C-alpha cells in the first residue's frame, strides 16, 4: 500500500478545498464537561416579613432556606427535574445529529474533491442529509456492540473468579493471567470496532449501504486488511500529534512576547484591566488557532481514510 501517495493526495485535497474545513470544525467541536434549632425570632416560621441577615446570622438563614424548601410544591421539583432531563436529551440529540451530518458531508465532499469536482458547503451538505439516519443508527449499533463486548468480558471474568474463589491460588492465577489477556483482547476488539466504524461510515455514505450490511462488510474489510488499516491509523495519529504539538509551539512562541508584556504589571502586584483583557485575548487566540489546525487535521485524516477505503473496496 502506497501510504506516501495517499498522504500527498490528502494534503493537496485538504489545502485546496477550504470549505470542507467547516465540517472539520464541527467534528472537532463535537467530538472531544439548622437545621438549626427553632431558636430566636429571626429565622423561624413562615410569617417572616424580613429575610435573615446573611452572613451575620448564618444558622437562622439556613434554617429559613430549609423551611422554604419544604414549602415548595412537588410539581416545581418535578418541572425542574424534567427540565434538566429535557436539556440533556436535546443537547445529546443535537450533537449526535450534527456530528453524523458533518461526517457524512465531509466524506461525500472529499470524494467529490478527489474526483476534481467543485466542492462547496451547498453541494456537499446533501451527502450528510442523505446518510444521516443510517449513520446515527449505525453509531447506535456499534456503541451497543461495544458495550456488549465490555459487559460480556467483565461478566466472564467475574463469574470465573467467583467459581475459583474456593481455591485461592487458582483465583489469583485467573485474576492475573485472565486480567492481562482480557485487557489485550479488549484493546484489540476496540481497535477492530474503530476500524469497522471507519469503513462502515464510508460504505453508508459512498456506497449507500444500510447500517447492518455496512457493519458486516466493514468487519470483513477490517479483518482482511488489518495491518494496512492499523498502519493508516498510526500514521494519522502521528501526523495529528506532530502537527498539533508543532502548531502549539509556534503559536505559543509568537504569543509569548505580547503575553509577557501584558503580564508585567502582575509582578508588581497590580492587576490592570487592560492586562487581564490582553491575556484573555492571547489565550483565546491560542485556543482558536489550535482549533483551526485541528479542523484541518480532521479533514486530512478523513481524506486518508477515504482513499484507503477506495483502494481496498475497489480491489
Amino acid at each position: 500500500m502506497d501510504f506516501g501517495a495517499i498522504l500527498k493526495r490528502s494534503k493537496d485535497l485538504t489545502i485546496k478545498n477550504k470549505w470542507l474545513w467547516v465540517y472539520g470544525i464541527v467534528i472537532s467541536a463535537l467530538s472531544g464537561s439548622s437545621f438549626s434549632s427553632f431558636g430566636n425570632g429571626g429565622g423561624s416560621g413562615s410569617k417572616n416579613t424580613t429575610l435573615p441577615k446573611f452572613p451575620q446570622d448564618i444558622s437562622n438563614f439556613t434554617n429559613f432556606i430549609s423551611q422554604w424548601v419544604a414549602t415548595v410544591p412537588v410539581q416545581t421539583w418535578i418541572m425542574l427535574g424534567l427540565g434538566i432531563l429535557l436539556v440533556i436529551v436535546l443537547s445529546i440529540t443535537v450533537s449526535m445529529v450534527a456530528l453524523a451530518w458533518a461526517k457524512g458531508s465531509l466524506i461525500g465532499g472529499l470524494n467529490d474533491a478527489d474526483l476534481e469536482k467543485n466542492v462547496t458547503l451547498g453541494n456537499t451538505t446533501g451527502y450528510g442529509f442523505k446518510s444521516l439516519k443510517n449513520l446515527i443508527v449505525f453509531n447506535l449499533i456499534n456503541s451497543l456492540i461495544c458495550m456488549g463486548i465490555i459487559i460480556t468480558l467483565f461478566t466472564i471474568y467475574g463469574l470465573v473468579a467467583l467459581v475459583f474463589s474456593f481455591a485461592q491460588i487458582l483465583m489469583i492465577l485467573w485474576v492475573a493471567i485472565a486480567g492481562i489477556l482480557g485487557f489485550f483482547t479488549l484493546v484489540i476488539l476496540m481497535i477492530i470496532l474503530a476500524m469497522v466504524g471507519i469503513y462502515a461510515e464510508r460504505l453508508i455514505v459512498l456506497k449507500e449501504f444500510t447500517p447492518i450490511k455496512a457493519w458486516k462488510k466493514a468487519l470483513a474489510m477490517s479483518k482482511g486488511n488489518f495491518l494496512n488499516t492499523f498502519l493508516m491509523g498510526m500514521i494519522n495519529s502521528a501526523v495529528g500529534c506532530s502537527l498539533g504539538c508543532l502548531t502549539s509551539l509556534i503559536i505559543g512562541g509568537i504569543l509569548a512576547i505580547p503575553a509577557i508584556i501584558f503580564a508585567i504589571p502582575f509582578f508588581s502586584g497590580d492587576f490592570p484591566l487592560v492586562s487581564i483583557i490582553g491575556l484573555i485575548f492571547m489565550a483565546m487566540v491560542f485556543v482558536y488557532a489550535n482549533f483551526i489546525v485541528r479542523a484541518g487535521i480532521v479533514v486530512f485524516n478523513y481524506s486518508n481514510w477515504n482513499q484507503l477505503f477506495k483502494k481496498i473496496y475497489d480491489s
Partner: protein
Amino acid sequence: MTHSFAHPLKRYLAFILDGLIGFLIFSLAILAICASRTPNELLTNILNSLIWLIFYWPIVFVLFNVFLTHRFGGTLGQLLTGIRIVDKNEKYLFFKMALFRTYIGATVSGAFLGLGYLWVFWDKERQGWHDKVSNSFVITKSKMGWVVGVLTLGTLIVFIIFLALAFIGNLQTIGTWV
C-alpha cells in the same frame, strides 16, 4: 431569484428584534418576581422563573421560530423587517429543513467565533454558513422593512425602559425586607 438578497444589516436588525422580543418575556418573569409579597413567595417565584427561563423558554421560543420560518418564512423580527427565508425556488422551507437550519446550522455558524454569521457581509449571495448548509436564502420581500423594523425597535426599547423602571420600583420594596 426574483427578489434581492436581504442586506446583512437588515438581518441583524431582525436578530436584535427577536432578541428584544425574547427579552420581554424574561422581563415579565422579573416583574413577577418583584411582585412577591413575602420572602417565601419571592424565593418560590425566583425558582419558578429560573426553571422556565433556563430550561423551557429557550426551547419553546426556538421551536416557535422554526414554525414561523416554515409557515410564514421567518421569525417575528424577520417578518417585521420584511425579509423571508426561502429555498432556491423561493418557497418557504420544509419544517425539517427549518429545524435543521436553526439548530444544526446555528452550530455550524457559531462553531468558530461566529464566523459563519459574519460571512453574510462578503458572500455574494448574502448567505451565512447556516444558509449554505441548508441551501436557503434570505430575501427582501417588503421595501418598508427598514421603517417598520426601526419603529418596532424604538417601541420595544421604550417598553423595556418602562419595565425597568417598574422593576426598580418593586426592588425598593424587596430591599425593605433585608
